[in-house]
Each structure stands twice: as structure tokens, then as C-alpha cells.
């Protein structure tokens, strides 16, 4: 395995990301959950429990902001190269396709993880919840897991679907990750959203509180570490399939001479 290949892709993509447009986009995504939770806290009555704000922060950062960042970087990983007519230069390098997938996956995670690391403490402070340090720790860990798993999922979609990968990814995220996550049946266990929610529930120790005990029906009795293990395996499997897909090649590039 050529270890320098993914590093080269990472280096180039990070250089390319240092533009006013990309930085503005990053800033908007980072500020978006902070502003929203701040407004919610100011308009909400004092009776709204902290748990509601924690769940809101979880959805805004781990499920929306991180996924938006990943969508922009991971999903078009092949189509961008094909549209930029640079794919031929990549696939004619030894292991070039695999290095590109790993490099771009790393960039997408770095970019989105950086978003979460900046957003989480500021948004937690803006929400005014109790035990902010613990909430920060939990939300940061969940955001990082979200980046790993959703990054692998969107990378796979980007390698399988050559045209309109972004549309397919959004439809998948809405239907499967958005809807199936909340269906109390075995099928929801195949979603990243379910695992992340279960972890939030465990790590915030909501299962021990009488008012949220009903959630046990939804999330079951599995330990937190089993959810982490499932998410890790899920990411590795999806990324491996993506690498195999790129290795198989056969992408349509352009009208041939």
C-alpha cells in the first residue's frame, strides 16, 4: 500500500479548501447550530428541560452540521474528479484510485470534525445547560463518530453513484437515516442515527431517569461500547466496499475519441 498517496490527496485538498468561499461555508455551518440554540434558549420558557437542549444540540451538530460538511466533501469525491477531467491522471497511478478515496475521506472527516470541535463548546455555552463539560465531551465524541460513519456512508454512495450522487445521498439520509432511525423495529438498528441516539441516551445517563425510561424500549439494553463497535465496523465495511468499487473501475469519463 502506498501510504504517501492518501497523504498527497489530503495535502492538496486541504490547500484547495483554503479559499474564501470554502472558509465562509465552514463558518456558516459552524455558527448555524450556535445561533439556533441561542435563539431557542432565549425564547423558551424556563420549564423546558436541559435534556431538550442537549437533544437539539445533538441533532444540530452531530446529525446536521457534520453531515452537511461530509456531503460537500465525501459525496462528490469521484464525480468532481471526472468533471475536472483529472480522473484519468489518478487511475493511471499505482493505487491512485484507492489513495484518492482514502485521502478524500480523511479530508471530509477533518473538515467536519473541525466544525464539530468549534461548534460544540460554543453551542453548549449558548444553550446554558447544566454540566456543560460533560455535555461537551459527549457531543464531541458523538460528532466524531458521526463523521467516521456518515463519512464512510457518503464515500460509498459517491463511489457507486457517478451522476447525481448528492441527490441520492440526500434521499438516503432523509428516508433511511431520518425516518427509519425512529421506527421501533429491528430495521432501525442498521442506521447510524439509531446508534448515535442510543449512545447519547447511554452517555447522558437518561436511562436512569424516571421521565425518560420509556426510551429504553426504543434503544434496548445494549451497552454503549457495543454501539461504538458497531459504528466502527460499519465504517470499515462501507469504506472497504467503496475501495473495492473504485478498484473495479469502469467509470464513464467522457465521450471517447
Amino acid at each position, binding site marked *: 500500500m502506498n501510504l504517501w498517496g492518501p497523504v498527497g490527496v489530503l495535502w492538496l485538498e486541504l*490547500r484547495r479548501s483554503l479559499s474564501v468561499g470554502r472558509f465562509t461555508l465552514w463558518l456558516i455551518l459552524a455558527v448555524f447550530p450556535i445561533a439556533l440554540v441561542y435563539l431557542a434558549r432565549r425564547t423558551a420558557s424556563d420549564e423546558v428541560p436541559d435534556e431538550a437542549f442537549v437533544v437539539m444540540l445533538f441533532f444540530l451538530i452531530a446529525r446536521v452540521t457534520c453531515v452537511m460538511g461530509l456531503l460537500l466533501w465525501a459525496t462528490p469525491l469521484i464525480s468532481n474528479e471526472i468533471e475536472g477531467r*483529472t480522473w484519468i491522471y489518478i487511475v*493511471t497511478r499505482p493505487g491512485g484510485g484507492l489513495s484518492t478515496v482514502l485521502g478524500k475521506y480523511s479530508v471530509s472527516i477533518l473538515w467536519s470534525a473541525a466544525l464539530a470541535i468549534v461548534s460544540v463548546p460554543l453551542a453548549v455555552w449558548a444553550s446554558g445547560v447544566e454540566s456543560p463539560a460533560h455535555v461537551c465531551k459527549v457531543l464531541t465524541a458523538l460528532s466524531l463518530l458521526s463523521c467516521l460513519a456518515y463519512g464512510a456512508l457518503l464515500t460509498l454512495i459517491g463511489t457507486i453513484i457517478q451522476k447525481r450522487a448528492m441527490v441520492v445521498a440526500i434521499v438516503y439520509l432523509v428516508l433511511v437515516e431520518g425516518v427509519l432511525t425512529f421506527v421501533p423495529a429491528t430495521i432501525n438498528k442498521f442506521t447510524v442515527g439509531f446508534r448515535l441516539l442510543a449512545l447519547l441516551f447511554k452517555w447522558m445517563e437518561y436511562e436512569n431517569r424516571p421521565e425518560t425510561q420509556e426510551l429504553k424500549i426504543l434503544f434496548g439494553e445494549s451497552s454503549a461500547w457495543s454501539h461504538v463497535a458497531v459504528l466502527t465496523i460499519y465504517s470499515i465495511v462501507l469504506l472497504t466496499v467503496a475501495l473495492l468499487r473504485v478498484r473495479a473501475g469502469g467509470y464513464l469519463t467522457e465521450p471517447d475519441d
Partner: protein
Amino acid sequence: MSDTQQPTIELLHTTRLYGTVIGVNDICLNFPPGAYGLVGPNGAGKTTLIGLLTGAMRPNRGTVRIFGKNPVGNRSVLRRIGICPATEILLPRTTAHAWVVELMMLSGFSFSKAKQLAERALDRTGMSMAMHRPIDSYSLGMRQRVKLAQAIAHDPDLLILDEPFNGLDPVGRYEMTQLLKEWTREGKTLLLASHVLPEVEAVTDAFLLIFGGRLLASGTADELRELVAELPQQITLVGEDVAKLAGRLADQDWVDSVKLSPDRTTLKIEARRANELYRHVTRWIGEENLRVSSMSGDEGELALLFNILTRRHRGFAR
């Protein structure tokens, strides 16, 4: 078999289809190290053939061997190939230096080595002064030089260039020609694809002619001209005395038709054997001191060659 004896490129009944559209059709090739021109009009299948040679595409039928091995996903083969495709690169916010460094790292070099190789190659192609500028600010010729730099930076044994003269000014063309000549003198293999015969001829004397996905002919430029001369073609003579040739030509068994314009200054001849036509007409003009200002085929040399070879290939001509 040692590396020097082994054919660099070997295709055996190779076919590549795009659905029902033929990219290349049943091509057989086998050639040792050297410089070769791959000549064909746009849409002939040159890029598809290059895609097969570089392992970017798999054949639907037949085999492709580069240095004796299948190039698809073969790291040891790909390390020895440099490719400069015809397509334009559209890389926003990327400098030539950064792009070539990245491609060298994709080839397996460390960051410092990749930088060194990229800078050397960009210098060799005359891009060292502008290499830290974004590629999208370059002229077509500059982008062509950058594409060549990334192809030669890792010092490959097989260099494949697809229309490398596109967009180059006369000085750039001369420099590119010199660079490619120098490359072939080093004993490496060069495959130069172009639709302009003289461009290829300036670099090499060995040609492969491709059209409609098929290999029509191969050989030196002289051999190909000889081939044209042996085949039927239409010739136009212009001059005050061309009418004097009409009668003589009409008597020859290798002439199909003779047509004199009403003003008797243009003579169109269709001959089955062009070499006979050229030989006799030039002799008669010389012997009788006839006033003939021009003698030309109705098409450009390459177009004519393809037209003739295609007709022969389809069975319309002998």
C-alpha cells in the same frame, strides 16, 4: 524473456465497446521499445486505445499486455507509464506545482522527493517560472506543458501522449518536438497520438493508423505514402497545357476517368494506380515542357490516406 526483448505493448484481438458503440475493434499490436505515432482523425479510437494501454479501461474481448503484464490495477506496470491525456484539466484553486507534487505522491514518492521530481519536470517543460500560479490562469499551451510535466516527472519507461501539440505556439511546438526526440534517444518508448501527420512525423518515423476503432495500417511514413500511391485516388492538374495531357491519359488502362473543365485549364483524373499516374504525368510534363502550375490530391494527405484505407478496409477499393 528479458525486458529488452519483450514487446513494450502487446494487444491481441482487443475490443472495447461502450454499450453498442465500438471504441476499438479487434486490434492486434506488438511492438518493441521505440517511438510510435498513433495517427487517426478525431473519433478514431485513439483515446480508447490509450485508456486500454494505461489500464484505465478493461477490454471487453482480447488481451492487453504492457511490459508483458496486464496493466489494469498493476502497480509495477503503472509505475513505468507516464500519460498525458488530450482532455483539458479543470482544476480550480490548484497550482501546477501542487498538482504535480500530489500526482508524484500518488505514484508512491515521499513529499520531499515528489517536490523535487515535480520541480525538475516543470523546469524541463519550461514552467518553473509560473508553477506557483493556479492552473486555471494558464493559457492552453501552458496547461499542455503542465500535463507533459506530470507525465515525465517520475521518469517512466513508456510515455503516452495524446494530442500533446494542442494549443502550443510555434516555439512551444519546436520545444516539445525537441523534448520528445531527446526522450526517444534515451531508449524509452513513446506513443504519440495525433490527428496531424506532420506533427508526429517530426518526432518519429513509425506510424500506426487507426480509424473507426480499427488499426488500418502501420509502418514508416514512406511506406504509408507508398501504400497511398498503390491505391486509387483523384488528382487535379491546373495549368494552361493540361488539355494536352487529357488525350494521353485517356489511353492508359490504369485511368478510370478524365474530366477537362470548360476553360480547359483544370483536369481531374481518377486513377486506379496513383504511382503510375504521378510517374507518367511528371515525365510527360518534363519531356514536352508543358505549362502545369499545380498537381494535387483532392484531400489533404492524411484525410486522403484514411479515406483510401477505409474504402479498402470496407472492400470498396482494391
